[in-house]
């Protein structure tokens, strides 16, 4: 399994380190280089190429790749596989992401490491299957019921599809939680040059196994900070895994307010408290700027173009790109906002992350949006215009 991670074998199968390929295929490459040996998925545009690539690649590295009967079964199989010790993943788009929500919550509650790639397309419902969107961002945060925290990464390029998918596996294993890679139909289907990491650039961080023997081991007792060690199936530890509220032994404690509060607070805090370590942003600050952009994913490419053009025209502007969107880097956003009068948030939706920005900034700057739907990406000029003439106001999220 992952114990046998073999860089030479994987890189031999993936071919030249420099390639010109598609974002979806790059996610598959990133999965292999992240130590993934189990994929279960269901065909859906524009994510299908991930399943197709992995069905060719995984069997050649001792991995399992299977097409399940639906997306619910796919995430179920991924969680089951993870408990045997494999690094496991699925990939989907909006409709499938909706179907997976209940079991994403199960993975949060049972602290099961797994990776879910959402190649976002226009919704709601079937929407525009072949067109890109960023309309699942708040579903990524709040899609499953109940209090929880989530880790979500947003690649803006084909290269980042490799890099962030790799990273997602390490974060999932380290924090024992589902990690979402929120790409989109544009990044998924566009082709760019990628450079695959060299052997010494690949790091495989693994979940911590039990440090005490069976009998003494308490499977859901936090040991490293707020994260418990994980005893996989078949290792003699007799771990009982449930989505019910459970005590440190993993046994149901559904009527205990204490057990529930202690468990759910710990699950939230193990991620929220790690926000500084999980924060991954790119800042392009300009002294004296009164306006700033906060972007992520494909829209960050357009934002970077707009910044270049605005500065060429003599206008001062700062730019903050979120690579890790959740846990939301509140402190970084607040520091970014401090010198600014206005923040413009370009998104391929009618306004999602702009609400989270507004909550973080808490009135220190005015939040405007460049909200675009319909299937075309935001152009740099649309952002330039919003900076010059004002973006759409952000209404209260109701």
């Amino acid at each position, binding site marked *: 399994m992952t114990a046998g991670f073999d860089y030479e074998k994987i890189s031999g199968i993936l071919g030249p380190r420099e390639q010109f390929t598609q974002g979806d295929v790059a996610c598959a490459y990133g999965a292999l280089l992240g130590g993934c040996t189990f994929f279960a998925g269901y065909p859906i545009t524009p994510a299908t190429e991930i399943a197709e690539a992995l069905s060719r690649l995984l069997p050649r590295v001792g991995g*399992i790749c299977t097409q399940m009967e639906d997306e619910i079964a796919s995430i*179920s*199989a991924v969680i*089951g596989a993870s408990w*045997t*010790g494999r690094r496991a993943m699925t990939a989907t788009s909006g409709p499938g992401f909706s179907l997976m929500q209940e079991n994403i919550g199960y993975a949060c509650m049972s602290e099961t490491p797994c990776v879910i790639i959402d190649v976002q397309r226009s919704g709601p419902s079937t929407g525009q299957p072949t067109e890109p969107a960023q309309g699942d961002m708040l579903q990524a945060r709040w899609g499953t019921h109940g209090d929880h925290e989530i880790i979500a990464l947003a690649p803006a390029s084909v290269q980042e599809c490799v890099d962030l998918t790799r990273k997602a596996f390490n974060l999932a294993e380290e924090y024992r939680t589902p990690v979402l890679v929120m790409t989109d139909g544009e990044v998924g289907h566009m082709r760019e040059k990628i450079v695959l990491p060299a052997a010494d650039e690949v790091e495989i961080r693994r979940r911590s196994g039990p440090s005490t023997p069976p009998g003494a081991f308490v499977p859901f007792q936090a040991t490293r900070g707020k994260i418990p060690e994980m005893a996989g*199936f078949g290792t003699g530890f007799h771990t009982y*895994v449930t*989505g019910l509220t459970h005590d440190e032994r993993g*046994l149901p404690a559904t009527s205990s307010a204490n057990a529930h509060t202690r468990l759910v607070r710990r699950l939230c805090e193990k991620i929220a408290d790690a926000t500084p370590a999980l924060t991954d942003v790119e800042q392009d600050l300009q002294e004296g700027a009164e306006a700033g952009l906060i972007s992520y994913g494909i829209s960050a490419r357009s934002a970077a173009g707009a910044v270049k053009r605005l500065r060429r025209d003599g206008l001062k502007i700062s730019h903050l790109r979120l690579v890790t969107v959740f846990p939301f880097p509140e402190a970084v956003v607040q520091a970014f906002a401090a010198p600014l009068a206005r923040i413009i948030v370009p998104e391929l939706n009618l306004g999602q992350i702009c609400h989270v920005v507004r909550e973080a900034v808490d009135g220190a700057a005015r939040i405007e949006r460049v909200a675009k739907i319909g299937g075309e990406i935001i152009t740099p000029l649309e952002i330039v215009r919003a900076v010059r003439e004002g973006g759409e106001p952000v209404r209260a999220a109701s």
Partner: protein
Amino acid sequence: MFNQARHIRDKYIRDEMWPSIFCTGCGIGNVLNYTLRAVDGVGLDIDRCVFCSGIGCSSRLPGYIEADGLHTTHGRAIAFATGVKLAEPDLHVVVFTGDGDMAGIGGNHFIHAARRNVDLTVICVNNYNYGMTGGQVSPTTPERGLTTTSPYGNVEQPFDLCRLAIGAGAPFVARWTVGYPYETIEAIAAALRKPGFAFVELLMPCPTGYGKENRLGDSEAVWRWYKEHTISRRDLLQLSPEDRAASRKIVVGTLWDVDRPEYTRRWAELVQGL
């Protein structure tokens, strides 16, 4: 017999979980007993067994076993179990499920796992209703059966779960009622030994739900009802053709046992040498 009961309890039961949540007269505890005796009889290494389940009364069973357990979401146990088995084919994977969990919300996973012929042992406790939520109509509730959501009688034709399993491709299919301990233990043991998707349906009274709604009487009477309304396949075959045709009883026994290539073995052969 007493010693064997103590052996089973000491070896396999997770003490901290006792007493169980099951109602008086419920047969789910018997299903646990029979399954553990079968596991013991077959000689499975309990450290290499994973007991999976979904949501419902029967899905609480893995919690009572001192072994790895995966108590999942409603209807999805077989899909989770498929992931476990594909990822680690040397594990013995057993699924406890119920009529609502498996044939209602999880029906799709059931037929596809049978079609794929993944090496799982699926034990479906069929009590004709959703017991955990208080006795609602299920995909196996008999026609005209009374439940809290079919108060004027069920107008739907129920699934015959064994025929469904056979039709979907399961190579081993058996049905018993929990009133037949030795036959049930033998059937579960055969299912555990079967290299492939092995399905055991266990008809079982729900005295507080379906039994009460349909005035089947007290626990003893409900258990008797199941015996009186079933006939073994062997006994059925001994009836005259006329009597056999006229029999309205539910047939129990091993209903299907064929050989079919198992999924994880086919996969291993397929990818060998890639």
